[in-house]
């Protein structure tokens, strides 16, 4: 599914190297987690995979089911089945959440040569998915993320994921800014989407999210590289000992 090989990238404006040779494979059906200290390049990795401007890939490759992601525009990557749940979902005043969801869904369907969903079918689908995430009609009507609480924003991300049914989901610090109950609700939403045809890459600082979304593999990232990979126990080790020992071991 997702294959990242020797990925090097820098900030376009500052010529500062952020990714220094990331190697990572996430097979279909699996949940991988990336943990790491601040500034290790976790979020940058998610932005580069989804195609945000401002980064320059200097070496290496990233592909999804054999398709070179780095050659594609962000919307083409989305149509290929890549989805990024943002750490800070963007507020877009004046654009209704429903309009946004429907435009996104139909853009992807069109790009894939599928028939667009009509208003009635779309409405039925969105209501059903929203209900499971406790997203009420009012939140659907409001402008995208405007006036949403932290928890509502993250639930809205998961709703988009549920509507768009991507193959590869990247969750960038989805637990940040959430209280325990909100985190549970979000994790339930993610777990409901786990399937043999879908893979997840969960980026987080803390082990607690991984209590709710159980990973198959945990990677530790530091200074632009994956320095260690292991099972879920690796996350527990980080929780107990912090990153310092791991970083020293790698040095």
């Amino acid at each position: 599914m997702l294959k990242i090989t020797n990925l090097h990238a820098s900030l376009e404006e500052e010529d500062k190297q952020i990714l220094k040779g990331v190697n990572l494979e996430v097979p279909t059906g699996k949940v991988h987690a990336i943990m790491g200290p601040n500034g290790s390049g976790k979020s940058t990795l998610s932005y580069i995979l989804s195609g945000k401007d401002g980064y320059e890939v200097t070496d290496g490759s990233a592909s999804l089911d054999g398709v070179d992601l780095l050659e594609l525009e962000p919307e083409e990557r989305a149509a290929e089945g890549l989805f990024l749940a943002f750490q800070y979902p963007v507020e877009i005043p004046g654009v209704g959440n429903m309009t946004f969801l429907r435009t996104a869904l139909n853009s992807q369907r069109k790009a894939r040569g599928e028939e667009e969903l009509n208003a009635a079918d779309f409405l039925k689908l969105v209501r059903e998915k929203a209900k499971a995430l406790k997203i009420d009609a009012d939140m659907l009507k409001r402008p995208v993320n405007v006036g949403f609480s932290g928890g509502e924003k993250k639930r809205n991300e998961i709703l988009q994921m549920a509507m768009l049914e991507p193959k590869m989901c990247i969750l960038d610090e989805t637990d940040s800014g959430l209280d325990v109950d909100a985190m549970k609700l979000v994790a339930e939403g993610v777990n409901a989407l786990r399937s043999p045809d879908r893979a997840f890459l969960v980026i987080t600082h803390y082990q607690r999210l991984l209590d709710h979304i159980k990973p198959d593999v945990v990677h530790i990232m530091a200074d632009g590289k994956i320095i260690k990979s292991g099972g879920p126990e690796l996350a527990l080790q980080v929780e107990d000992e912090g990153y310092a020992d791991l970083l020293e071991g790698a040095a």
Partner: protein
Amino acid sequence: MTLPAQKQKATDDLLGAYDAPTSASRWANEAREAALGRYQNMGAPTRRDEYWKYTNPAALTAGIATENPVAPTDVTAFDQVDSLKLVFVDGRFDVHRSDAIQGVQINQLADVLAADIHACKDLFGELEARGQKPVHRPLAALNTAMAKEGVVIHVKGQLDRPVEIQYLREDPTADILIHNVIKLDKDASLTLLESGAIGARFNIVSEIDVPDNASFHHIRLQGRETQRAGSNHIFARLGAESLFKSFTLAVNGTLTRNETIIELTGDNANAHVACAAAGDGDFHHDDTVFVTHDAVNCESRQVFKKVLRNGATSCFQGKILVKPDAQKTDGYQISQGLLLDDDSNFLAKPELEIYADDVACSHGSTCGGADETALFYLMSRGISRDQAQDMLVLAFLDEAIQEIADETLADAIRGQLQAWLR
């Protein structure tokens, strides 16, 4: 007083463009003569005038209007609205194409000016004259002096439908002066819609009296006529507890000057002016607004949003003047430019002049490109850059459209905007 040579020439050239109106009743002749005097004293606008710094008035003051090809009449959002239609063709009122007048008194300007007695006679030229201080509006004075055409609307109660004025074009050279007078009685209300390409060049003045408890809603469409060149002046006087709301949707036009001059003279009055404009290429759009607070506890709001690309220019000159006794004034003004490239210009001059001490006035003006973070967010969900940008443009302009009170009309305007941008 003599004018500088260049100004004198522009003044004479422009005056020479219009035939003198035929003699009317005595009061009307006097009003016209007074207006002509005002015009000649002030002189035609030139680039050196403070309020014409951002807009070159040359095309509006030339002795001959530039010929301007007639485009097919646009289908407008108002076609779906059940309204009482008043139709002008090349600046002349067309009785046959207009609806039969029902439920409201509407006369042609010439008939009113010829009559000795009319309920609106105290307004003609009066609100325009009041609006000449402290800023000169010579084009409006010229209009009062020379205009032969226009409608005079007297609303005595509630109308069951809007009145729509359509200004249609057939002649590629028509140089149009239209002077409308609208009088509402106390407690009366009117929704006025305006649309159409008007003329090769136009100068329209509307004097609107909104007395105590009356309400006036106005929606104006300035459409895809690429070479539109003209000026609009609205002079409104508001009484106590009255409401005035004006919204303009504008796309294209090489030179459009919309002036709105509002005087809040009664307590608790409410005046809102808004505009959503989209300019592409050879576009110059100028909104000049002057709101005078001269009563207690009045509210005024100015909301102007412009999207510009390919070298388009838009300017906003908005002023709130709060007189010494206008305590508890609530004045608000926002003007924003969304520039889709580096070639376009948004010029803003917000002004507040406040002489009362217990007021809340705020203003803001911003100018910038499309929000890249929002664009990326939309694109990351599968929406193309172009479509994402369109969504952001519509969202940006929608803040002005939200100023329209009637939801049905607001939705019609949204549809119109999308059709025009396509």
